[in-house]
């Protein structure tokens, strides 16, 4: 293969082990792809080329001796939320200007221990707050996917159309790409864009309300948010600690399984890390789903949902039924309250977690007439609008006199949301199938969303329930809409049953195929 960036992780792994390619070659291929594409896509905020070359060289030395870990020589992108020792780590915020941690997050340490190569730090919404990657201090990330129009062109029958078909009648169909720039989703927009555009073999990401699954759906990639407690949160910049969970974004289901196996661990440094061995997720791929009970929740059929999303959902149901699964209608009655409860719990936790950015210990400092003035000026200059908005909401709902009405009520509703899931799992449902997002990717600087923050929040309507209940969820590409944009389906599993998600997502992938954007950058 001429372009090494086209290899999936599993393909690259085989070629690296057989010495058909070297880690240095594949790393160089990615570094030049990034150099060419990043000015257009803005997926990376920092490229660690020297470190990447050093790591690749070390991998090659190991591979030459027939040694090396499960990801030896595989080049990855790292979301800017992960602490990476001596390397830019700013959660894409101005307030963390110049911050280079003196420690390595547990997840990235796991990846490096398994031989992965770091290409750089990936763009994201500031402090992971956003659904379009437009709140980053480093500017928006661009989706490698663009809308397209299907044209039928009458051609002389001898014409050999470029990328089109020559039909007997002398017409051909061709997709014409629209120039409008689209968002990759958020908050892990840099991760999704980079994976989709072949700027890394896979990427780390995090998901507090949908930040892995929504961008994966918008870019035709696979993203899994594992069960809360499966991946250590140690060394990841905290947003909402009871909801945050890291996971991978990858080009196919197998690659996501390979990455999660390395990222997940039992970590004494995170008290919420669960003492359960990490299974071999890859082994679940290819297992038949005959007899599996798949739940279809009626509450996910929301008003104004495009007909295409409903059709995609039906297609997913048919694929799983054809593979021998039993489809059952289920009810998760508190679904509609998940998003409002989230917009109390997440800002409340964020307001507390982000109190540490005070201009004293790290990052930006803007002077003031006294220390309080210095705090206020630093935080006013350092945080963007969305982050301020959420800190303000969080501070308000936790302030004296409002705690019971807002925070306590939301945490009670959260118990009910979790109970809904427990009830359907207790009734024998193995996995739940839903759409991943209520729409395909939308335009940069969408006016409706800019005018009304709640409209932007509605992007997470299908994903946020999973965070509220701490469950695992995977987004897998399921097809293109009429404008040629990818759409995804979501599978929700029992706690710590990521294996069933990989197993079932693979069935969808087999039916839908993997998706690749047409290159314009």
């Amino acid at each position, binding site marked *: 293969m001429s372009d090494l960036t086209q290899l999936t992780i599993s393909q690259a792994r085989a070629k690296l082990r057989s010495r058909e390619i070297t880690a240095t070659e594949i790393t160089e291929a990615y570094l030049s792809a990034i150099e060419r594409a990043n000015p257009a896509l803005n997926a990376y905020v920092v490229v660690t080329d020297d470190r990447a070359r050093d790591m690749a060289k070390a991998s090659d030395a190991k591979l030459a001796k027939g040694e090396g870990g499960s990801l030896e020589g595989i080049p990855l992108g790292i979301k800017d939320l992960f602490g990476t020792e001596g390397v830019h780590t700013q959660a894409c915020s101005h307030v963390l200007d110049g911050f280079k941690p003196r420690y390595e997050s547990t997840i990235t340490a796991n990846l490096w221990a398994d031989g992965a190569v770091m290409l750089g730090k990936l763009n994201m919404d500031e402090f992971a707050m956003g659904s379009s990657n437009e709140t980053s201090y480093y500017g928006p990330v661009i989706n490698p996917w663009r809308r397209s129009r299907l044209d039928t062109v009458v051609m002389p029958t001898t014409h050999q159309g470029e990328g089109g078909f020559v039909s007997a009648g002398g017409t051909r169909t061709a997709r014409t790409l629209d120039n409008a720039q689209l968002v990759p989703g958020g908050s892990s927009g840099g991760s999704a864009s980079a994976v989709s555009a072949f700027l890394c073999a896979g990427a780390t990401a995090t998901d507090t309300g949908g930040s892995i699954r929504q961008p994966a759906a918008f870019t035709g990639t696979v993203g899994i948010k594992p069960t809360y407690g499966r991946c250590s949160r140690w060394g990841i910049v905290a947003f909402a600690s009871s909801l945050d969970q890291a996971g991978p974004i990858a080009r196919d289901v197998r690659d996501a399984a390979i990455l999660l196996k390395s990222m997940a661990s039992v970590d004494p440094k995170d008290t919420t890390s669960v003492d359960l061995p990490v299974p071999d997720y890859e082994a679940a791929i290819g297992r038949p789903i005959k007899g599996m009970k798949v739940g279809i929740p009626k509450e996910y059929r929301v008003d104004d949902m495009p007909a295409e999303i409903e059709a995609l959902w039906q297609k997913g149901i048919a694929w799983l039924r054809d593979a021998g699964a039993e489809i059952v209608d289920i009810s998760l009655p508190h679904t509609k309250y998940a998003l409002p409860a989230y917009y109390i719990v997440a800002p409340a936790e964020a307001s507390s977690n982000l109190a540490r950015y005070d201009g004293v210990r790290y990052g930006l400092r803007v002077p003031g007439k006294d220390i309080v003035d210095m705090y206020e000026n630093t935080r006013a200059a350092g945080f963007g609008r969305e982050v301020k908005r959420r800190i*303000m909401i969080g501070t308000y709902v936790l302030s004296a006199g409002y705690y019971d009405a807002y925070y306590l009520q939301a945490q009670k509703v959260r118990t009910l949301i979790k109970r809904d899931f427990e009830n359907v799992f207790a009734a024998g449902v193995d996995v739940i199938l839903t759409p991943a997002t209520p729409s395909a990717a939308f335009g940069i600087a969408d006016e409706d969303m800019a005018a009304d923050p709640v409209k932007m929040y509605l992007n997470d309507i299908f994903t946020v329930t999973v965070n509220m209940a701490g469950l695992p969820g995977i987004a897998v590409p399921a097809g293109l809409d009429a404008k040629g944009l990818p759409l995804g389906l979501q599978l929700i599993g029992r706690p710590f049953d990521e294996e069933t998600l990989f197993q079932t997502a693979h069935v969808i992938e087999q039916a839908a195929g993997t998706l690749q954007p047409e290159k314009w950058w």
Partner: protein
Amino acid sequence: MSVDIKTVKRVAHLARIAVSEEDAERMTGELNAILGFVEQLNEVDVSGVEPMTSVTPMAMKKRQDGVTDGGKAADIVANAPATEENFFLVPKVVE
């Protein structure tokens, strides 16, 4: 419930974020939109429901009460905007 501009300024001060008159005005609208959206939670009957404290039914792990780390003052102040001899420097807080 909704907030007025006076409340927004008070909350901004509690959150230690300086706001201009214009910021406060804009935020009042935005915060009220969000508070209006979360209002629907009041419809839910939560009588007898325990608030969630942990999504995984597990007791928080406890480690031995022993020193496991330390001696890294230089690392700890390495990223601070102003330091002197491994101390963080802040504007004068006592007269």
